[in-house]
Protein backbone atom coordinates (compact mmCIF):
# COMPACT_ATOMS: atom_id res chain seq x y z
CA UNK A 1 0.00 0.00 0.00
CA UNK A 2 1.11 3.56 -0.65
CA UNK A 3 0.10 6.97 0.77
CA UNK A 4 -3.15 8.65 -0.30
CA UNK A 5 -3.13 9.87 -3.94
CA UNK A 6 -2.52 13.58 -3.71
CA UNK A 7 -5.37 15.71 -5.05
CA UNK A 8 -4.42 18.37 -7.59
CA UNK A 9 -5.58 21.86 -6.69
CA UNK A 10 -7.79 22.17 -9.79
CA UNK A 11 -9.59 18.92 -9.04
CA UNK A 12 -9.88 19.93 -5.39
CA UNK A 13 -11.85 23.04 -6.44
CA UNK A 14 -14.46 20.73 -8.01
CA UNK A 15 -15.56 19.57 -4.55
CA UNK A 16 -16.99 23.04 -3.86
CA UNK A 17 -19.43 22.52 -6.75
CA UNK A 18 -21.33 20.13 -4.51
CA UNK A 19 -22.28 23.12 -2.35
CA UNK A 20 -24.39 24.37 -5.29
CA UNK A 21 -26.68 21.40 -4.66
CA UNK A 22 -27.00 22.42 -1.00
CA UNK A 23 -27.74 26.03 -2.00
CA UNK A 24 -30.37 24.92 -4.54
CA UNK A 25 -32.13 22.72 -1.98
CA UNK A 26 -31.94 25.45 0.67
CA UNK A 27 -33.52 27.95 -1.75
CA UNK A 28 -36.26 25.50 -2.69
CA UNK A 29 -37.03 24.69 0.95
CA UNK A 30 -36.81 28.36 1.95
CA UNK A 31 -34.06 27.67 4.47
CA UNK A 32 -32.60 31.08 5.12
CA UNK A 33 -29.11 29.88 5.97
CA UNK A 34 -27.20 30.47 2.73
CA UNK A 35 -25.15 33.10 4.48
CA UNK A 36 -24.19 30.69 7.23
CA UNK A 37 -23.27 28.09 4.60
CA UNK A 38 -20.91 30.61 2.98
CA UNK A 39 -19.41 31.71 6.27
CA UNK A 40 -19.05 28.11 7.44
CA UNK A 41 -17.40 26.97 4.20
CA UNK A 42 -15.00 29.91 4.12
CA UNK A 43 -14.11 29.64 7.81
CA UNK A 44 -13.56 25.90 7.52
CA UNK A 45 -11.35 26.37 4.46
CA UNK A 46 -9.28 29.15 6.02
CA UNK A 47 -8.89 27.47 9.41
CA UNK A 48 -7.84 24.18 7.85
CA UNK A 49 -5.43 25.83 5.39
CA UNK A 50 -3.78 27.63 8.31
CA UNK A 51 -3.71 24.43 10.37
CA UNK A 52 -2.21 22.63 7.36
CA UNK A 53 0.59 25.16 7.07
CA UNK A 54 1.30 25.17 10.79
CA UNK A 55 1.36 21.37 10.95
CA UNK A 56 3.61 21.13 7.88
CA UNK A 57 6.00 23.56 9.52
CA UNK A 58 5.93 21.74 12.85
CA UNK A 59 6.48 18.32 11.22
CA UNK A 60 9.45 19.68 9.26
CA UNK A 61 10.95 21.33 12.33
CA UNK A 62 9.83 19.09 15.18
CA UNK A 63 10.62 20.83 18.44
CA UNK A 64 9.03 20.08 21.83
CA UNK A 65 8.06 23.75 22.19
CA UNK A 66 5.76 23.56 19.17
CA UNK A 67 3.98 20.48 20.45
CA UNK A 68 3.57 22.00 23.90
CA UNK A 69 2.28 25.28 22.44
CA UNK A 70 -0.18 23.44 20.20
CA UNK A 71 -1.46 21.38 23.14
CA UNK A 72 -1.74 24.44 25.37
CA UNK A 73 -3.68 26.49 22.84
CA UNK A 74 -5.98 23.54 22.09
CA UNK A 75 -6.82 23.10 25.78
CA UNK A 76 -7.24 26.85 26.32
CA UNK A 77 -9.62 26.99 23.37
CA UNK A 78 -11.61 23.99 24.71
CA UNK A 79 -11.94 25.58 28.17
CA UNK A 80 -12.92 28.91 26.65
CA UNK A 81 -15.62 27.26 24.53
CA UNK A 82 -17.19 25.47 27.52
CA UNK A 83 -17.08 28.55 29.78
CA UNK A 84 -18.44 30.95 27.16
CA UNK A 85 -21.44 28.69 26.67
CA UNK A 86 -22.16 28.47 30.40
CA UNK A 87 -21.77 32.08 31.49
CA UNK A 88 -23.87 31.80 34.65
CA UNK A 89 -21.21 29.67 36.40
CA UNK A 90 -19.47 31.11 39.47
CA UNK A 91 -15.70 31.71 39.35
CA UNK A 92 -14.72 28.65 41.40
CA UNK A 93 -16.89 26.38 39.26
CA UNK A 94 -15.13 27.80 36.17
CA UNK A 95 -11.71 27.11 37.68
CA UNK A 96 -12.74 23.55 38.51
CA UNK A 97 -13.92 22.97 34.93
CA UNK A 98 -10.67 24.39 33.55
CA UNK A 99 -8.53 22.11 35.69
CA UNK A 100 -10.68 19.03 35.04
CA UNK A 101 -10.50 19.53 31.28
CA UNK A 102 -6.77 20.25 31.29
CA UNK A 103 -5.73 17.42 33.61
CA UNK A 104 -7.95 14.69 32.22
CA UNK A 105 -7.15 15.74 28.63
CA UNK A 106 -3.38 15.85 29.16
CA UNK A 107 -3.40 12.66 31.25
CA UNK A 108 -5.22 10.58 28.65
CA UNK A 109 -3.17 12.01 25.75
CA UNK A 110 0.05 11.17 27.61
CA UNK A 111 -1.16 7.65 28.40
CA UNK A 112 -2.22 7.05 24.79
CA UNK A 113 0.92 8.42 23.12
CA UNK A 114 3.49 7.16 25.60
CA UNK A 115 2.07 3.87 26.86
CA UNK A 116 -0.07 2.62 23.95
CA UNK A 117 1.63 4.03 20.82
CA UNK A 118 5.02 4.01 22.55
CA UNK A 119 6.13 7.40 21.18
CA UNK A 120 7.49 10.54 22.78
CA UNK A 121 4.78 12.95 23.99
CA UNK A 122 6.69 15.63 22.05
CA UNK A 123 6.36 13.78 18.73
CA UNK A 124 3.93 16.12 16.94
CA UNK A 125 2.82 13.51 14.40
CA UNK A 126 1.09 11.52 17.15
CA UNK A 127 0.42 13.97 19.92
CA UNK A 128 -1.24 16.69 17.84
CA UNK A 129 -3.90 14.67 15.98
CA UNK A 130 -4.62 12.37 18.92
CA UNK A 131 -4.95 15.21 21.42
CA UNK A 132 -7.25 17.00 18.99
CA UNK A 133 -9.68 14.09 19.07
CA UNK A 134 -9.33 13.51 22.80
CA UNK A 135 -9.59 17.14 23.94
CA UNK A 136 -12.35 17.90 21.40
CA UNK A 137 -14.50 15.08 22.72
CA UNK A 138 -13.79 16.04 26.33
CA UNK A 139 -14.94 19.57 25.48
CA UNK A 140 -18.21 18.36 23.97
CA UNK A 141 -18.78 16.04 26.92
CA UNK A 142 -18.12 18.66 29.62
CA UNK A 143 -20.26 21.17 27.76
CA UNK A 144 -23.17 18.72 27.63
CA UNK A 145 -22.68 17.60 31.23
CA UNK A 146 -22.46 21.11 32.69
CA UNK A 147 -25.39 22.32 30.61
CA UNK A 148 -27.56 19.40 31.73
CA UNK A 149 -26.53 19.95 35.36
CA UNK A 150 -27.34 23.68 35.34
CA UNK A 151 -30.62 23.18 33.50
CA UNK A 152 -31.79 20.41 35.80
CA UNK A 153 -30.99 22.23 39.04
CA UNK A 154 -32.76 25.30 37.75
CA UNK A 155 -35.80 23.23 36.66
CA UNK A 156 -35.88 21.44 40.03
CA UNK A 157 -35.44 24.52 42.18
CA UNK A 158 -38.56 23.84 44.32
CA UNK A 159 -37.24 20.37 45.12
CA UNK A 160 -33.85 21.76 46.16
CA UNK A 161 -35.47 24.48 48.28
CA UNK A 162 -37.83 22.06 49.99
CA UNK A 163 -35.00 19.67 50.82
CA UNK A 164 -32.68 22.35 52.17
CA UNK A 165 -35.51 23.80 54.31
CA UNK A 166 -36.22 20.33 55.69
CA UNK A 167 -32.61 19.89 56.80
CA UNK A 168 -31.14 17.71 54.03
CA UNK A 169 -27.43 18.08 53.30
CA UNK A 170 -26.56 20.02 50.13
CA UNK A 171 -24.31 17.15 49.09
CA UNK A 172 -27.17 14.65 49.24
CA UNK A 173 -29.44 17.08 47.43
CA UNK A 174 -27.06 17.81 44.54
CA UNK A 175 -25.34 14.45 43.96
CA UNK A 176 -28.32 12.89 42.14
CA UNK A 177 -28.15 15.81 39.67
CA UNK A 178 -24.39 15.27 39.23
CA UNK A 179 -24.86 11.56 38.53
CA UNK A 180 -27.70 12.09 36.11
CA UNK A 181 -25.78 14.76 34.18
CA UNK A 182 -22.71 12.54 33.97
CA UNK A 183 -24.87 9.78 32.50
CA UNK A 184 -26.34 12.20 29.93
CA UNK A 185 -22.84 13.33 28.92
CA UNK A 186 -21.56 9.77 28.55
CA UNK A 187 -24.44 8.34 26.51
CA UNK A 188 -23.52 9.81 23.08
CA UNK A 189 -20.02 8.29 23.32
CA UNK A 190 -21.36 4.92 24.44
CA UNK A 191 -23.98 4.89 21.66
CA UNK A 192 -21.29 5.84 19.18
CA UNK A 193 -19.22 2.84 20.29
CA UNK A 194 -22.19 0.50 19.86
CA UNK A 195 -22.71 1.47 16.19
CA UNK A 196 -19.03 1.69 15.28
CA UNK A 197 -17.87 -0.17 12.17
CA UNK A 198 -21.36 -1.21 11.09
CA UNK A 199 -22.92 1.91 9.62
CA UNK A 200 -19.70 3.65 8.67
CA UNK A 201 -16.00 3.47 9.11
CA UNK A 202 -15.05 6.03 11.74
CA UNK A 203 -13.09 9.12 10.67
CA UNK A 204 -9.75 8.22 12.12
CA UNK A 205 -9.80 4.75 10.56
CA UNK A 206 -10.90 6.16 7.18
CA UNK A 207 -8.00 8.59 7.25
CA UNK A 208 -5.47 5.92 8.09
CA UNK A 209 -6.75 3.52 5.42
CA UNK A 210 -6.68 6.29 2.79
CA UNK A 211 -3.09 7.07 3.69
CA UNK A 212 -2.11 3.45 3.24
CA UNK A 213 -2.21 1.97 6.72
CA UNK A 214 -3.26 -1.68 6.96
CA UNK A 215 -6.86 -1.93 8.16
CA UNK A 216 -5.70 -4.27 10.91
CA UNK A 217 -3.48 -1.52 12.30
CA UNK A 218 -6.16 1.10 11.70
CA UNK A 219 -8.70 -0.78 13.84
CA UNK A 220 -6.25 -0.97 16.73
CA UNK A 221 -5.92 2.80 16.65
CA UNK A 222 -9.66 3.23 16.29
CA UNK A 223 -10.47 0.97 19.23
CA UNK A 224 -7.83 2.69 21.35
CA UNK A 225 -9.06 6.18 20.52
CA UNK A 226 -12.67 5.24 21.31
CA UNK A 227 -11.70 3.88 24.71
CA UNK A 228 -9.54 6.95 25.32
CA UNK A 229 -12.44 9.23 24.36
CA UNK A 230 -14.87 7.35 26.59
CA UNK A 231 -12.45 7.66 29.52
CA UNK A 232 -11.63 11.32 28.97
CA UNK A 233 -15.31 12.28 28.72
CA UNK A 234 -16.06 10.34 31.89
CA UNK A 235 -13.11 11.78 33.80
CA UNK A 236 -13.49 15.39 32.71
CA UNK A 237 -17.26 15.54 33.28
CA UNK A 238 -16.96 13.74 36.61
CA UNK A 239 -14.17 16.08 37.73
CA UNK A 240 -16.04 19.20 36.61
CA UNK A 241 -19.32 18.30 38.26
CA UNK A 242 -18.15 16.36 41.28
CA UNK A 243 -15.80 19.12 42.37
CA UNK A 244 -17.94 21.87 40.87
CA UNK A 245 -21.20 21.24 42.71
CA UNK A 246 -19.48 22.06 46.00
CA UNK A 247 -18.99 25.63 44.82
CA UNK A 248 -22.75 26.18 44.86
CA UNK A 249 -23.04 26.41 48.66
CA UNK A 250 -20.95 27.79 51.53
CA UNK A 251 -19.66 26.16 54.71
CA UNK A 252 -22.94 27.10 56.43
CA UNK A 253 -24.78 24.93 53.86
CA UNK A 254 -26.39 27.99 52.30
CA UNK A 255 -26.88 28.07 48.55
CA UNK A 256 -25.15 31.03 46.96
Amino acid at each position, binding site marked *: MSGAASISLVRFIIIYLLLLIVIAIMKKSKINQTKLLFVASIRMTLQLVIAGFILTYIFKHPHPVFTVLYLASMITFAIHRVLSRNKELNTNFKIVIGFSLAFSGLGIVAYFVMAVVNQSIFNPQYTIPLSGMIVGNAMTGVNLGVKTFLESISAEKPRIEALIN*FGAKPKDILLPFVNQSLETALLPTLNNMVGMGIVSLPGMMTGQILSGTMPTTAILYQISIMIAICTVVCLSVFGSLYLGYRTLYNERNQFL
Partner: protein
Amino acid sequence: MHILSIKSLNFKNKIFYKDVNIEKGQIVFLRGASGSGKSTLLRLINATLPLEEGTILYNNKDIREIDTITLRREIILAGQSVYLFPGTIKDNFKRYHEYRESQVPSDEVIRSLLDTSCIDFDIDTVCNNFSGGERQRVFISIALSFKPRVLLLDEPTSALDNATADRLMSNLVTHCKQNYMTMIIVSHDQTITEKYAEVTIDIGEGVK
Protein backbone atom coordinates in the same frame (compact mmCIF):
# COMPACT_ATOMS: atom_id res chain seq x y z
CA MET B 1 -37.46 30.85 78.47
CA HIS B 2 -37.51 32.35 74.99
CA ILE B 3 -37.09 29.74 72.29
CA LEU B 4 -36.20 32.44 69.74
CA SER B 5 -34.92 35.98 70.21
CA ILE B 6 -34.29 38.40 67.40
CA LYS B 7 -31.98 41.34 68.15
CA SER B 8 -31.06 44.30 65.93
CA LEU B 9 -31.42 42.10 62.87
CA ASN B 10 -31.23 43.47 59.37
CA PHE B 11 -30.92 41.88 55.98
CA LYS B 12 -28.37 43.43 53.62
CA ASN B 13 -29.13 46.84 55.15
CA LYS B 14 -32.45 46.78 53.30
CA ILE B 15 -34.83 45.10 55.69
CA PHE B 16 -34.67 46.10 59.35
CA TYR B 17 -36.45 43.88 61.87
CA LYS B 18 -37.83 44.85 65.25
CA ASP B 19 -36.47 42.99 68.27
CA VAL B 20 -38.76 40.11 69.10
CA ASN B 21 -38.86 37.34 71.69
CA ILE B 22 -40.85 34.19 71.01
CA GLU B 23 -41.83 31.84 73.82
CA LYS B 24 -41.79 28.08 73.54
CA GLY B 25 -45.09 26.67 72.28
CA GLN B 26 -46.43 30.01 71.04
CA ILE B 27 -48.45 30.42 67.89
CA VAL B 28 -46.95 33.48 66.18
CA PHE B 29 -48.25 35.18 63.06
CA LEU B 30 -46.10 37.49 60.95
CA ARG B 31 -47.88 40.29 59.11
CA GLY B 32 -46.64 42.81 56.62
CA ALA B 33 -46.98 43.99 53.05
CA SER B 34 -45.59 41.94 50.16
CA GLY B 35 -41.83 42.37 50.01
CA SER B 36 -41.59 43.51 53.63
CA GLY B 37 -39.28 40.61 54.44
CA LYS B 38 -41.54 38.01 56.06
CA SER B 39 -40.24 35.05 54.04
CA THR B 40 -36.70 36.39 54.38
CA LEU B 41 -37.10 36.36 58.19
CA LEU B 42 -38.18 32.71 58.11
CA ARG B 43 -35.16 31.83 55.97
CA LEU B 44 -32.84 33.73 58.31
CA ILE B 45 -34.28 31.84 61.27
CA ASN B 46 -33.61 28.39 59.77
CA ALA B 47 -30.24 29.59 58.42
CA THR B 48 -30.87 28.96 54.74
CA LEU B 49 -29.93 32.61 54.20
CA PRO B 50 -26.68 34.01 55.59
CA LEU B 51 -27.14 36.16 58.69
CA GLU B 52 -24.84 39.13 58.41
CA GLU B 53 -25.95 41.74 60.91
CA GLY B 54 -27.80 41.28 64.17
CA THR B 55 -28.45 38.16 66.18
CA ILE B 56 -30.94 35.35 66.29
CA LEU B 57 -30.82 33.28 69.47
CA TYR B 58 -32.29 29.78 69.52
CA ASN B 59 -32.59 28.47 73.08
CA ASN B 60 -30.27 31.32 74.09
CA LYS B 61 -27.58 30.24 71.64
CA ASP B 62 -26.50 32.29 68.63
CA ILE B 63 -27.66 30.33 65.58
CA ARG B 64 -24.33 31.08 63.90
CA GLU B 65 -22.74 28.78 66.45
CA ILE B 66 -25.13 25.93 65.71
CA ASP B 67 -24.47 23.45 62.90
CA THR B 68 -26.89 24.47 60.15
CA ILE B 69 -28.07 20.94 59.39
CA THR B 70 -28.82 20.25 63.07
CA LEU B 71 -30.61 23.60 63.32
CA ARG B 72 -32.74 22.97 60.22
CA ARG B 73 -33.74 19.58 61.54
CA GLU B 74 -35.22 21.30 64.61
CA ILE B 75 -36.51 24.44 62.91
CA ILE B 76 -38.35 23.23 59.82
CA LEU B 77 -39.47 25.63 57.12
CA ALA B 78 -42.34 24.64 54.86
CA GLY B 79 -41.84 27.36 52.28
CA GLN B 80 -44.06 28.65 49.51
CA SER B 81 -42.54 26.48 46.84
CA VAL B 82 -44.11 23.11 47.51
CA TYR B 83 -42.38 20.05 46.08
CA LEU B 84 -43.63 16.48 45.96
CA PHE B 85 -41.70 13.64 44.33
CA PRO B 86 -43.52 11.72 41.60
CA GLY B 87 -45.21 8.74 43.25
CA THR B 88 -47.57 8.02 46.13
CA ILE B 89 -48.03 9.94 49.37
CA LYS B 90 -46.14 7.21 51.21
CA ASP B 91 -43.28 7.35 48.65
CA ASN B 92 -42.95 11.05 49.43
CA PHE B 93 -42.66 10.47 53.18
CA LYS B 94 -40.03 7.83 52.40
CA ARG B 95 -37.99 9.98 50.01
CA TYR B 96 -37.95 13.00 52.31
CA HIS B 97 -36.97 10.93 55.35
CA GLU B 98 -34.19 9.25 53.35
CA TYR B 99 -32.79 12.67 52.52
CA ARG B 100 -33.03 13.64 56.19
CA GLU B 101 -31.45 10.35 57.29
CA SER B 102 -34.36 9.78 59.66
CA GLN B 103 -36.70 6.86 60.38
CA VAL B 104 -39.69 6.76 57.99
CA PRO B 105 -42.85 7.07 60.12
CA SER B 106 -45.23 4.10 60.32
CA ASP B 107 -48.37 4.00 58.16
CA GLU B 108 -50.45 4.81 61.25
CA VAL B 109 -48.45 7.94 61.97
CA ILE B 110 -48.61 9.05 58.33
CA ARG B 111 -52.40 8.57 58.33
CA SER B 112 -52.83 10.63 61.46
CA LEU B 113 -50.61 13.42 60.10
CA LEU B 114 -52.58 13.45 56.84
CA ASP B 115 -55.68 13.74 58.99
CA THR B 116 -54.19 16.74 60.77
CA SER B 117 -53.54 18.34 57.36
CA CYS B 118 -57.11 17.62 56.20
CA ILE B 119 -56.07 15.08 53.54
CA ASP B 120 -58.62 12.29 53.11
CA PHE B 121 -56.68 10.22 50.58
CA ASP B 122 -55.18 6.82 51.28
CA ILE B 123 -51.40 6.80 51.77
CA ASP B 124 -50.98 4.80 48.54
CA THR B 125 -52.63 7.49 46.40
CA VAL B 126 -50.41 8.85 43.65
CA CYS B 127 -49.78 12.59 44.18
CA ASN B 128 -49.00 13.55 40.57
CA ASN B 129 -52.48 14.91 39.82
CA PHE B 130 -53.17 16.59 43.16
CA SER B 131 -54.41 20.18 43.17
CA GLY B 132 -52.21 22.98 44.51
CA GLY B 133 -54.02 22.96 47.86
CA GLU B 134 -53.75 19.19 48.22
CA ARG B 135 -50.03 19.24 47.44
CA GLN B 136 -49.54 22.02 49.97
CA ARG B 137 -51.27 20.05 52.72
CA VAL B 138 -49.41 16.78 51.98
CA PHE B 139 -46.22 18.86 52.10
CA ILE B 140 -47.16 20.28 55.51
CA SER B 141 -47.91 16.81 56.86
CA ILE B 142 -44.42 15.71 55.75
CA ALA B 143 -42.95 18.73 57.58
CA LEU B 144 -44.90 17.69 60.71
CA SER B 145 -43.54 14.13 60.45
CA PHE B 146 -40.01 15.45 61.12
CA LYS B 147 -41.24 16.40 64.63
CA PRO B 148 -39.76 19.91 64.55
CA ARG B 149 -39.34 22.01 67.70
CA VAL B 150 -40.25 25.07 65.66
CA LEU B 151 -42.39 24.94 62.54
CA LEU B 152 -42.12 27.85 60.11
CA LEU B 153 -45.00 28.04 57.64
CA ASP B 154 -45.02 30.43 54.70
CA GLU B 155 -48.57 31.09 53.49
CA PRO B 156 -49.89 27.62 54.41
CA THR B 157 -53.46 28.47 53.46
CA SER B 158 -52.83 30.41 50.24
CA ALA B 159 -54.32 27.71 47.99
CA LEU B 160 -57.22 26.74 50.25
CA ASP B 161 -60.87 27.75 50.54
CA ASN B 162 -61.90 29.47 53.78
CA ALA B 163 -63.48 26.42 55.40
CA THR B 164 -60.51 24.12 54.71
CA ALA B 165 -58.07 26.85 55.75
CA ASP B 166 -59.87 27.21 59.07
CA ARG B 167 -59.98 23.45 59.67
CA LEU B 168 -56.26 23.10 58.79
CA MET B 169 -55.24 25.92 61.15
CA SER B 170 -57.34 24.57 63.98
CA ASN B 171 -55.78 21.10 63.55
CA LEU B 172 -52.26 22.54 63.34
CA VAL B 173 -52.74 24.54 66.53
CA THR B 174 -54.00 21.45 68.36
CA HIS B 175 -51.05 19.44 67.02
CA CYS B 176 -48.62 22.12 68.20
CA LYS B 177 -50.08 22.26 71.68
CA GLN B 178 -49.98 18.47 72.01
CA ASN B 179 -46.36 18.30 70.88
CA TYR B 180 -45.01 21.46 72.60
CA MET B 181 -44.19 22.84 69.17
CA THR B 182 -43.67 26.53 68.42
CA MET B 183 -45.24 27.73 65.19
CA ILE B 184 -44.41 30.87 63.22
CA ILE B 185 -46.74 31.55 60.34
CA VAL B 186 -46.63 34.07 57.53
CA SER B 187 -50.16 34.73 56.37
CA HIS B 188 -52.12 37.32 54.46
CA ASP B 189 -55.37 35.85 55.72
CA GLN B 190 -56.80 38.38 58.19
CA THR B 191 -59.54 36.09 59.55
CA ILE B 192 -57.16 33.21 60.25
CA THR B 193 -54.61 35.53 61.83
CA GLU B 194 -57.14 37.12 64.18
CA LYS B 195 -58.62 33.79 65.16
CA TYR B 196 -55.46 31.77 65.81
CA ALA B 197 -52.63 34.16 66.61
CA GLU B 198 -51.37 34.25 70.17
CA VAL B 199 -48.85 36.86 69.11
CA THR B 200 -48.89 38.94 65.96
CA ILE B 201 -45.74 40.60 64.73
CA ASP B 202 -46.02 43.43 62.24
CA ILE B 203 -42.88 43.72 60.22
CA GLY B 204 -44.36 45.94 57.55
CA GLU B 205 -42.81 49.16 58.79
CA GLY B 206 -39.34 47.65 59.00
CA VAL B 207 -38.39 48.39 55.41
CA LYS B 208 -36.25 51.41 54.70
